[in-house]
């Protein structure tokens, strides 16, 4: 059943591309219908699959001579991420309700991207996973290049090329694994059982991890992210930070760690405390956490703050993954969901609710606008989103980050310390942005104050309210009752770590 999320998304994209232009309302409602249906299917599939392990949905031979099959399956991790995608898709469509230029094409690319993302999360054949991973690249380019803002063409190209380079690295890993395992099959389960030699895994692992890590915002390959997120239109930023970065992390988990677990073993020698790829990537993840937070603290553009905060939060995910502890990896997957929702919320507020009304993202200019009074919806939504982003308990981020910290402590204590510093800085930059943008006491200078008084902003539209409510509800629900997701994630992580692709 979950496979229908993929099919209807692509079908929806095709229909939208062929729909007669000029009827923006029709395009929007159709896109919303498709996205919401996908979400509903995701929820149904999640509920149906709860308690079960890996469920195979489709398994057909594709290119039989090479052992490539069209295999779709879902375990707990996949179901949670599919749920996230459905949520982000629906919210994204709602937040794009005001797109007037080339609406059909916008939603066509949007749905194509969503379809690709669904596909990655549901694929259990490495080739198929790669195909969907690549399919997702092209819509991203066009979404940013056509409907984006600051330096959009440059940002779109940078993002597309970085993603492509990352996927090129994955392709090399895929080819190598396929060839080394005897060219029999590209199924994830088969490759995991192929007993790939340790020496092979030692270099295949970092290659594939970095390849996926580029998309996940692994430092120092993250530089596409802030530029891309800022330039992208709101829905695209939501998807990019919310879901697409998770594709990278998912790939790191499912493919790199799943297929090449021995790549994380100790090398036998160590340099400055680094004795395995695990140490290297943990270090990079921790640097990402702290660096992202520090840079976010220094930004003058509101959206850049959120962009860099995404890099910082994704660092948590990656850190959790390489702890290789049950609790750390569980926390990482939960953080994928949590940050997906929160980042979507933050970008939506900054991009759609604030920027499209004030036409500026510079914190200094926003300071003078008294948005706390003039846009209370945005202000309070950002307060809630900011609390969630800071990792306050009661929201989903707290449990996730706590689990990652516990896991990293069990692995190597100093990682936890550094990550904790990142959290503290996280509070600081969120705080700063909140204060400056919404609750500043600074009176406007004469040159900032308009002569005829402050113009009225466009009223908040129902799609914005609906989508904000949806996302907030999600993060609060998971924050208050994390078992709703943890019950699915924990068994899946357990079996994955036990080498149980079997």
């Amino acid at each position, binding site marked *: 059943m979950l496979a229908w999320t993929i099919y209807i998304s692509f079908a929806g994209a095709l229909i939208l591309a062929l729909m007669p232009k000029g009827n923006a309302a029709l395009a929007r409602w159709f896109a919303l219908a498709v996205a919401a249906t996908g979400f509903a299917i995701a929820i149904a599939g999640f509920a149906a699959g709860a308690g079960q392990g890996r469920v195979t949905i489709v398994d057909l031979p594709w290119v039989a001579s090479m052992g490539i099959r069209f295999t779709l399956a879902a375990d707990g991790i996949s179901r949670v991420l599919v749920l996230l995608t459905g949520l982000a898709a629906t919210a994204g469509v709602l937040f794009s309700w005001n797109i007037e230029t080339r609406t059909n094409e916008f939603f066509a690319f949007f749905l194509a991207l969503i379809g690709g993302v669904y596909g990655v999360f549901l694929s259990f054949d490495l080739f198929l996973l790669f195909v*969907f991973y690549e399919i997702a690249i*092209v819509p991203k380019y066009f979404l940013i290049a056509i409907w984006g803002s600051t330096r959009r*063409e440059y940002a779109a190209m940078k993002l597309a090329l970085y993603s492509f380079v990352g996927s*090129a690295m994955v392709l090399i890993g895929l080819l190598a694994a396929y060839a080394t395992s005897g060219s029999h099959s590209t199924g994830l389960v088969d490759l995991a059982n192929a007993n790939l030699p340790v020496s092979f895994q030692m270099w295949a692992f970092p290659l594939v991890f970095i390849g996926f890590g580029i998309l996940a915002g692994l430092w120092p390959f993250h530089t596409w992210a802030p530029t891309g997120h800022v330039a992208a239109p709101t829905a695209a930023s939501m998807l990019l930070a919310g879901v697409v970065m998770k594709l990278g992390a998912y790939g790191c988990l499912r493919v790199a760690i799943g297929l090449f677990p021995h790549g994380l073993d100790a090398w036998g020698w160590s340099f400055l405390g680094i004795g395995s790829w695990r140490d290297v990537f943990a270090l990079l993840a921790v640097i990402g956490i702290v660096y992202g937070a520090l840079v976010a603290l220094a930004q003058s553009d509101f959206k850049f703050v959120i962009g860099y905060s995404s890099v910082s939060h994704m660092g948590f995910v990656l850190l959790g993954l390489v702890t290789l502890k049950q609790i750390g990896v569980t926390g990482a997957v939960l953080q994928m969901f949590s940050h997906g929702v929160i980042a979507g919320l933050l970008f939506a507020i900054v991009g759609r609710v604030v920027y499209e009304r004030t036409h500026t993202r510079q914190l200094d200019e926003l300071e003078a606008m008294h948005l706390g009074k003039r846009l209370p919806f945005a202000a309070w939504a950002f307060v809630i989103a900011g609390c969630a982003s800071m990792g306050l308990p009661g929201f989903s981020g707290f449990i996730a980050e706590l689990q990652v910290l516990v896991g990293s402590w069990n692995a190597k204590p100093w990682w936890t310390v550094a990550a904790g510093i990142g959290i503290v800085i996280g509070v600081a930059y969120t705080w700063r942005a909140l204060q400056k943008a919404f609750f500043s006491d600074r009176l406007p200078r004469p040159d900032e104050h308009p002569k005829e008084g402050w113009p009225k902003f466009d009223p908040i539209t129902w799609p914005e309210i609906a989508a904000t409510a949806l996302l907030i509800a999600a993060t609060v629900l998971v924050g208050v009752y994390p078992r709703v997701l943890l019950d699915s994630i924990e068994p899946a992580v357990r079996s994955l770590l036990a080498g149980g692709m079997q």
Partner: protein
Amino acid sequence: MNYADLFRVTLPETALEIAALLVLVADLAFLRKASLQAREMVASILGVVGCGAAVALLPLHAGGGVSYPGSTELMLSTGGYSAIAQVGILMLTVLTLFLVIGSEFTQHVGEYVAVLLMAATGGLLISGAQDLLVIFVGLELLSLGLYILTAFAKSSEKSAEGAMKYYLFGGMSAAFLLFGFSYLYGLTGSTNLHEIMRGLYSGNVQSASPLLYVALVMVAAGLGFKVAAVPFHLWAPDTYEGAPAPAAAFIASVSKVASFALLIGIGTAAVHVFDNLRNASTVTFVVGPIPKYVGFAGPWSVVVTLIAVGSMVLGNLAALAQTSVRRLLAYSAIAHAGYILLALGYFSHSTASTNAVLYYILTYGLTTVGAFGAVAVVERNGGSDRMDAFLGLYKRNGLLAAVMMVLFLSLAGIPPLVGFWAKFNLFAAVLGVNRGVVPFTIVALAVAMSAVSLYYYLQVLKRVFVMPAADPTPMKGNLVTMGVLVVIALAVVVLGCLPGLLQAWMGSFYAGM
């Protein structure tokens, strides 16, 4: 020599020649007063019928062919990879014939189509050739036709310039090729590929000759020219830029298919040489200050791989700087040739490499014909093939824009389009032959270069979809051309989603081999 055999085997070529003559006659005798459009229609349809007849007459079973008198060696082989290549050539010729309809670059339609068909004949010959002289004859037949086709747009000085460069270059390469062939004959005493291979292996170190090098390099030069591989590629950008669009499509597709089929033939012969050999001496080793090789496959692999790497790198890097879409396509052709040569450098005993190469070149040819068709439409409406002529195409002709998206993304290797599968298949074949560090690094380089190529393909697509139109008037494309483009785009998508289809089809040619 069994002339009946020869006639039977070369029936397809005969059909094409007859078609060519019929076109000439029809055009010159009966259609003098007709409109250009009508003449193009008639010529194309006749040509298509001829190609159809050729396909029907193709001996599809593997293992057949024409043998030398008094020998079991084949002069011309049929079936297997040859048949695949020949069918491919004929299909692509059909598509380029359709592209002629609606074009306005010449009044001499009949001559154009006739020459095109004759060139296609040369391609058919090369695909099955197993003898050096047959290779040369076929190659020249193909090449001469191509030179003429390039020069056909008499009102364009670019066309003349391109043709001149092509001709001079081609002539020189033919000379090199012949020179190399002569050395091969000298070293082994035979002009048959298989016997040459055997001859080169039967020697020992002392009798091994450094002249083999010379021969190989010369042959590589000659054949590298045909596929536009570095460093024999200098003709390509100018030719692609100058030739009229249907001719450029033909050059980019059919001649490549034929040339690669030839290279497959050489590779197959080199690899299968041990099948009939009782005692084979060591394959290759180095002795003394001047390395001496025994056997063909070793140094040939080295040479081909070197050319492949150079083509990949230079083709992609040079394409980055282009502002003319035709030149961009030319450099990208060089790059793609580089990828394919890789599979020829690491050639397998099974049909894996052959299939990979054929799959790639057939689908690449298909895509390129589409690309040039799109370029033709834009040129007819705007007069230029510069990137700026494509601005805002999504508004001016949505269907054309969509087709271009499909084709260019396929060239970049984005799934689920066929270009991706072709690349994947190719690289898998290379690694299937040799999993060592060197081939792996080269494949990694190829993938990296592929990533580079995305940049320039996206530049074109950016003009098509993102940037606002300089001139927003709608662009009309000829009905037949648009029809062909849509068919090609659909094929690219379908074959990409279901790669098994084409693979199964190709596999059917080996049944019975």
